[in-house]
Each structure stands twice: as C-alpha cells, then as structure tokens.
C-alpha cells in the first residue's frame, strides 16, 4: 500500500508553479483571464474581466499592484490532471522585491512579449531575475492579432537579446483567446514540477499577504518542504513570532479550504495574524515545534526610498486621515508612516514609499477609498549628512535640515538607471539624463534600431517626473528600470518657498545647489499659475538661507462680476456662491493667502520636459 510520502511525491509530479512576467501593458492580466476561463474555473458569461486585478485603481491603470495567486485545474492532452499554480506579480519597477519573491516561489515563467512593441526594459529586468532563480523560461509572443504585430522581429529579439531559442517560443492573442491551450500544454510539458521533501520540517516562503475583514491576514505561501495544516503552531522566522494555524487552502476564484498544504503546493494560510505589517514578504514559515534549520534565502525588509508628508486639507479631518492610514496599511506592509507636523499645513504624517508610483497609488487610494482631501509635501529621497562633530545622520525631511554651519559633508543616493528605446531617441534621452545629473553612461545596441542606455544618476533626479518625461520624448516607446547603488557626495542646500513673507514649510525642498535657482524659479511660476488672485497682493519668493533667489507677484483681485438678481432669483446666486465657497474650503490658508491643493502638486512638476 502506498505511504503518505509516496502519495505526495506522485501528487507533486502534477503540480506546475509558474508566473507570467511582462512589461506593463503587454497583456499579462488578459492572458491570466483566458487561462482561468479555459481551465473551466470561470464561466465565460459571468466572468469579470481581469479577475486577478481586483482593485479599481489597478484595473483603471492596467497595472497589477498586489501579488495574488490562483490554482488552475487543467486536464492536459496526456489525459492527466494537473494543478497549475499561477502566481501573479506586480509589474512595476517600484515593487521588484515582491516580484523576486513571487518568482522564487515558481519553477518556471512565461515571458510575455508584445508582438508590436517587442522586448522592453522591464522584460529584460524580469528575465534576468527569473534566470537568477534558475527558472525555466517559456517565451510567449502576445497580441499577434494586432495589425502592427511583427512576430519575426520579436523572434529575432528573443534570440539575440535574450539568448533563447526562438523556435521554442509560443504565440498567442490573449484578447482573442488563440494559442492559450498550447501555452497550458507547454507549461505542463516544459516547466518542471516542484522539488521538495514533505518528510522534512515545514519550510514555506511568504510571497504575499492581504487583509480580509472577516478572517484577518491571509498569507500566500509556496510550500517547499514539509506540510502545514490547521491546528499547527507556525513560526515566522524573521522575528520568531508564532501563530496557531486556523485554516489552509488553495486559491481558486475564492478560497478553497483544504486539510493540508504539502511540499510543492501554493496556497494560503490563516493563522490569527492581526495585520499585514506582522507579515513580511520573503519570510519563511516553519513549524514551531519542529522548525527547519535555515530560513529560505533572499529575505529583505522592504525599504522605502521616497518620503513625503501627508496633510489633511481641513485640519478637522486629521482624525479621519489617521484612521484611513491605519486601514490602508492593513493591505500594504511596505508603506510606513509616523506623525509629523508643519507650520503651514498643521498636523500630518511623514510617510515612506517604495517609489513614486507607490506614492501615487497611496494618495489616490486615500482620496478615493476614504474620501479624503489631502495635500502632500514635496517628495524627497533620504540624504546622508555628516556633521562637523563626526556624526552621520539620514535626513529626508527638509524640516530636519541641519544648521549649515554644522555640516561637514552631504551625500545623496544614486541609482543605475537602465533605459531601452528606439535608437532615434538616443540624443533626447541622453540629454534628459544629463539634465538630471546623470554620469558614466554606457550604450549598447541589443538589436538593430534599439538602444539600451545606462546612467548613474541621483535618485532625486528621477523622482521628479522622470518616467513621464522619458515616455514623452520617446513617444511611449521608452522603458526604465533602476537599482540603488549607494551614496555619493553632493552639494545640498535647503530651498524654502515663502508666500507673503511666510515660509510654506510643506514646499521646502532639499536640493542640489546647482539646480536650486532653477527649481525656485519654477516653483514660483507654478504657484503663480495655481494660486487664484485674492483681495491682497501676493508675493511669492524662493530663498536659500536668508537669501531670496527668485520672486514673483500675484496682483490683487478688484472686481467681481456682480450680476443683476433678475426678478428676485436669489436661489441661483446662492448656489453659485456656495459652490465657490466650497471650492475655497478645499484650499489651505497660509497666513491670509488661500492655496489650493493643485498648487502644492504643481510645484512638483519639472520644467525640464
């Protein structure tokens, strides 16, 4: 009679753990949808498009923010039943750590390439990551139905740029549904089943966690060794916290409760964990009584690189904002925050983000899901200051800028940026990077007509609108990825913005001295455009230390259009004025000057387009 371990060994042969990696918009979610439909998991009539992208914002922007997984039951052409575990991955450069943990949970990847656009920077970046994890790579050319599709071109790229066999690659149109069956077959055939030993102590990799209002934190795991079931006590190895398992199961269109998850499985664990902050992506789960010896490799604490302060527009809304942030972090463990305050904007919070996209998303979700009107201060990176006393300190908040007399050295974080775009834009992209203080560039031509450019640049240079500028000058073809490469010396100053003589601390910025004047001029101009005329003259100034380096004035407003109140129609007039009044309430008062939220936002925009 077959023992438990033998059964599991056989069972493992029929598991395939894979991910789909692709550049933004190359069709990853659509392909996932089709697979879900094809394996019968969803009835086509009731199917909600792109079911894995459950957040509105994700759906709207066409990007995946959170990792999620789904188990597809597939009956292959060989007659056997397989479990295909698709682990969805975030598709943006801000979340590459999460991507790496999802990949570490797989044995293979589908490398999805848009037939019209070809290989982009993100594609390469993710491919290298997949290769680092020794995954089997199946190239798939998608969107072959497009009139601009050029399969030959892409196949050539696959060969020359990726070093893969172009004839092994598959083609499909996820949108039309063609070629998807062949992909499922290829997954079964080419991606190896998971290796692992169910008889060893439990060792499971956490690749995601999310909060469910009814059950608490749901942890997504890939089991490498051992097994996990309800009633066990597990230990999270990064901080030795222990929990009692309530339930385990697989991901289907909802959760599919199971008695146990064993080596090779991908599924969820519910264990009375209160918040997602208690769980770290990349951590190892093991059995408390019979723990594994070493944690799985690759664990890193998510580190924020961009910082900004968030304030409610109406100071009365502070409590609401506090509650919203608490609720928000239920599902975003990489978002960190603490109390902060500003003279101009009152009580708020200092927040850390993984990148600018992350910041955008947080802002949008706070405004949309919690119906808040908020202002962000100018985002900043974390600088390193060495004081004359010898002390080193990290500063991202302009309010903490040390006395200039105390400063011995200032440094800022640098990145290596890699960009890919059609060769004809090379000059424009180089100029953009040089404008952002890029240096030590390298250029390669991975295939005819395409250039790959790397630059070392200060991170501060790219948090201001870099990606959008790149997209704009390459007419959408440019792609961008980056990695942190440490701190370099840089002459930094504190730029302040004053409105009618009063410092608007939320607009203060730590900037490289060489660009301070330009930044100040631009801030003044933007404010002049965005701040509406008011009863008093408004003087806007940029200053470094006590020195005014730029100024502009907004002349006062002197005449309304006070129309005739025809025949006593007061209602119409009142509604109009109520609307105007409401608009004003959404503005921040700095002294006697009303500043709209858009003014703060506008100061971020670069004039270097």
């Amino acid at each position: 009679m077959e023992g438990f371990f033998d059964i599991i060994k056989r069972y493992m042969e029929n598991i395939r753990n894979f991910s789909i990696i692709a550049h933004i918009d190359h069709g990853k979610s659509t392909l996932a949808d089709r697979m879900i439909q094809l394996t019968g998991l969803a009835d086509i009539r009731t199917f909600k498009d792109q079911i894995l992208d459950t957040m509105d914002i994700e759906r709207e922007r066409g990007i995946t923010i959170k990792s999620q997984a789904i188990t597809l039951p597939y009956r292959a052409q060989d007659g056997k039943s397989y479990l295909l575990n698709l682990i969805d991955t975030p598709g943006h450069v801000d979340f590459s750590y999460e991507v790496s943990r999802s990949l570490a949970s797989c044995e293979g990847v589908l490398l999805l390439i848009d037939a019209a656009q070809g290989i982009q920077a993100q594609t390469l970046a993710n491919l290298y990551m997949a290769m680092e994890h020794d995954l089997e790579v199946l190239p798939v050319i998608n969107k072959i139905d497009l009139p601009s599709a050029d399969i030959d071109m892409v196949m050539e790229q696959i060969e020359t740029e990726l070093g893969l066999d172009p004839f092994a690659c598959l083609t499909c149109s996820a949108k039309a549904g063609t070629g998807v069956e062949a992909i499922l077959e290829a997954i079964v055939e080419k991606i190896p089943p998971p290796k692992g030993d169910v008889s060893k102590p439990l060792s499971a990799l956490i690749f995601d966690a999310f909060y469910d209002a009814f059950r608490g934190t749901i942890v997504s795991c890939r089991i490498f060794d051992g097994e996990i079931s309800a009633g066990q006590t597990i230990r999270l190895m990064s901080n030795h916290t222990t929990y009692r398992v309530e339930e385990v199961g697989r991901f289907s269109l909802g959760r599919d409760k199971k008695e146990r998850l064993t080596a090779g499985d991908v599924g969820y664990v519910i264990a009375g964990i209160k918040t997602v902050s208690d769980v770290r992506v990349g951590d190892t789960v093991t059995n408390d009584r019979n723990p594994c010896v070493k944690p799985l490799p690759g664990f890193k604490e998510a580190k924020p690189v961009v910082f900004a302060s968030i304030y409610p527009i109406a100071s009365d809304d502070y409590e609401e904002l506090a509650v919203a942030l608490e609720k928000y972090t239920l599902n975003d463990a990489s978002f960190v925050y603490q109390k902060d305050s500003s003279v101009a904007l009152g009580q708020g919070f200092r927040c850390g983000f993984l990148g600018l996209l992350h910041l955008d998303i947080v802002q949008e979700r706070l405004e949309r899901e919690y119906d808040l009107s908020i202002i962000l201060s100018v985002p900043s990176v974390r600088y390193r200051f060495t004081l004359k006393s010898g002390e080193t300190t990290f500063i991202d908040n302009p309010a903490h800028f040390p006395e200039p007399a105390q400063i011995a050295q200032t440094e800022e974080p640098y990145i290596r940026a890699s960009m890919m775009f059609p060769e004809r834009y090379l000059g424009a992209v180089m100029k953009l990077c040089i404008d952002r203080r890029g240096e030590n560039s390298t250029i390669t031509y991975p295939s005819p007509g395409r250039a790959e450019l790397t630059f070392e640049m200060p991170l501060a240079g790219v948090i201001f609108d870099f990606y959008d500028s790149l997209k704009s000058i390459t007419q959408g073809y440019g792609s961008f990825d980056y990695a942190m490469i440490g701190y370099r010396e840089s002459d930094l100053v504190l730029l302040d913005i004053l409105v009618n003589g009063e410092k608007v601390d939320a607009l203060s910025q730590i900037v490289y001295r060489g660009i301070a004047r330009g930044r100040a001029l631009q801030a003044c101009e933007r404010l002049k455009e965005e701040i509406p005329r008011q009863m008093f003259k408004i003087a806007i100034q940029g200053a470094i230390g006590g020195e005014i380096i730029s100024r502009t004035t907004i002349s006062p407003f002197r005449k309304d259009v006070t129309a005739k109140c025809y025949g006593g129609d007061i209602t119409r007039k009142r509604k109009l004025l109520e609307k105007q009044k409401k608009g004003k309430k959404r503005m921040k008062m700095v002294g006697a000057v009303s500043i709209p939220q858009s003014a703060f936002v506008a100061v971020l925009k670069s004039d270097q387009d």
Partner: protein
Amino acid sequence: MSTSTSVPDLATLYGKGKKESPGLYVHIPFCRTKCPYCNFYSITDTSTVQNYIDALKGEMALYVDSTLTYDTIYVGGGTPSILTAEQLFEIFDTIMAVFSIAEGSEITIEANPGDIDGDFASFLVHSPVNRINVGVQSFSDDILAYLGRRHSAKKAISALDRLIDEGCANIGLDLIYGIPGQGIDLWKNTLAQALLFSPAHLSCYELTVEPETPLGMHLAQGDTPLPEEDEMYDFFMTTTDILKCAGYVHYEVSNFASTERFVSRHNRKYWSHTPYLGLGSAAHSFFGNMRWWNHRSVKRYIADAMNGRPPIESNETLDSDALIFEALFLGLRTAEGVDLYELNARFQVDLLKKNRSKINALYKNGFIEIERGRIRPTDRGLAIADYISTFL
C-alpha cells in the same frame, strides 16, 4: 414634474420671517425683439398675451390672503411696455381687487424707450404706477446696435423728455457698462447724458455674459473681448465717483438713488430677506424660509394657472445655514451692509467672533467699515461683494 402641487401657505410662512410688508412682482415675458445678451426668459410671439393675462388672474386667485398687505408692486419683464394700455389696466385692476395694497405703495413698471409714446404715457398718468424704470442701456447708437436694442439714442432722449413732460417724478434709468468697444470715456459721456435728466434712480450694471446667450457664443469665438478685470474696476469706481459727486446715494452694488426717498423699495426687499410674491412665468417668491419659482415656459405657466393649479416649478426650504449665508451675501451688496448682532439674535451664530481675524483683515485693507456689529462695505468692498461673502 413639480412635486409642489399645493399652494404655499403665505400667512404661515410669513409668520416665520421678517414681519415687514411683502412686495408683489409680476412678470411680463414678452419682448418685441430679443437682445443677444439677455439670459432672461421671454418670447416674441404676442398672440398668447391675453391668455397669459387670464392665467395671471388665475394665479392671483390662489394667493388671496386678507392678513397680508403689500407695499410694493413691480411689473417687470421681458418688456411690460409692449402690452396695450387696456391690457395693463386689466392687470392692475385685478391686482388691486385681489390683494390688499397699502396706501403710498411704490408701484413700478419697466419700459423700453421705444414704447414710450402718447398712449403709454397716458396709461402711466391714469394708472396706479408711480415709478418707471426705463431700459436706456446707453446713449450711443453704436453701443445700442451692439447690444441689439431696438431703439435709438434719439428715441431714448425723446422718451425721457416725454415722461418728464407728463409729470413723472420718479424715473429710473438702466445703463450698462463694460461692453466691448465702449471705453471709459464713452461711459463717462453716457453718465453725463443720463444726469441731464436728473433721474430719481440709476441702475448701472456691468455687462454679464452668460455663455449660452447669443452674445456669449459670439464672444466665445474670440471677437473683441470683454474688458479685463482692471478695466471693469475702473468702470465701477468711475461710476460711483461721478454719481456720488452728483449727490446720488450708492445704496447697492449697481444701484444709485438721487435721495434716500428714491431707493427702490421693492428691490430692497430682495436684499433684506423681506418677503415677496412673484406672479407670472419664471417669477420667484420668498416667504419666511421658503423660496419657490414658477415655470419658465410661458406655455406651461398658462396651462397650469388657467386651470387653477399653482404654476410652481420647484421650491426649496432654507435651513439656517442657507439663510445666514443669504443674509450675508445679500447684505454685503448694499451700503447698509449686514448687522451681525442681528444675525446672531436671529440664528444664534456669532459671525463676528467666528471670523474675527478675517473681518479685521477686511477692515485693515479698506473693504469694510465696522460699527457696533454692523459691517458695511466701502466702494472697494462693493466691487468684490461676492468675493467677500465667500471669504467669510
């Protein structure tokens, strides 16, 4: 569509508001020609005038109330002066029969200069009307043509002369400034010409262009633009300087009276939360804490009112926030301003305390005077009355 199929109970509503004599407004939505800048509802088909008058009478019957006595009547439009003397008499006779009108009431009618002929003048003399508002707008033929007016400057002058000859003591002139191509000098000239008639009342309105009017659409195509805000300010200040020099009282943003006696008693009700009943299509009413208004469409108005149904399009009941805000922005349009102590007494809200720093800022910058809880706009304050009301 109207959910308010019942007649508002004037007596009850009256009890909720200021116990001052209500005013009566009658709308005559007919014009010979449509001026391209006008956003008000009127039609040029005069075949339904008699039906309309019958409908008016029907509507009046709905509001009979012996406890209320009106002390102003205002017949506006459209162009009331295109009705025949007979028709106008019919309207006035019915009003007098249905409503209790006080002795010494102010009774106003609006007229187009082109209609002031012998018949009309005669009507005036024999009717209860004791105040006439003439839509002169300008004494420049070029400007009149731009505004699409159907009379010439010469006609306006002769109309005014005739009224004076007939012994009309209470004449008001409507004038418009801020017209593309007008310029300050021409405007000064217009004011000078107006003053030659020693009118009891002058209304000087900034040209307001609503986008959906023919003028609005024309300007949107980028023709001669409207004067900039700085120029409008000049127009405004020039007007008040000249008229005040001539002894006029600048009692509301756009309105001047030769003496306190000739202030428009009826219009003052709009700005002081005094009740008023509006009859006719598109007419607005206010009693206590309720505002209601009639159908804009003449057809719908007639259909309802002729059949004894209140021709009300919609209504709103104002909560104290709305009433306070109204008291504020209406008061800030007038030289009398707003009595914040009184507002406090009425609504238990101390705006003086709540807005102390803002009121101080307004005072320091010369936009208001403040005395014993009453804030009064200066001329510069009147110029931005709307802005101030949303600032506080």
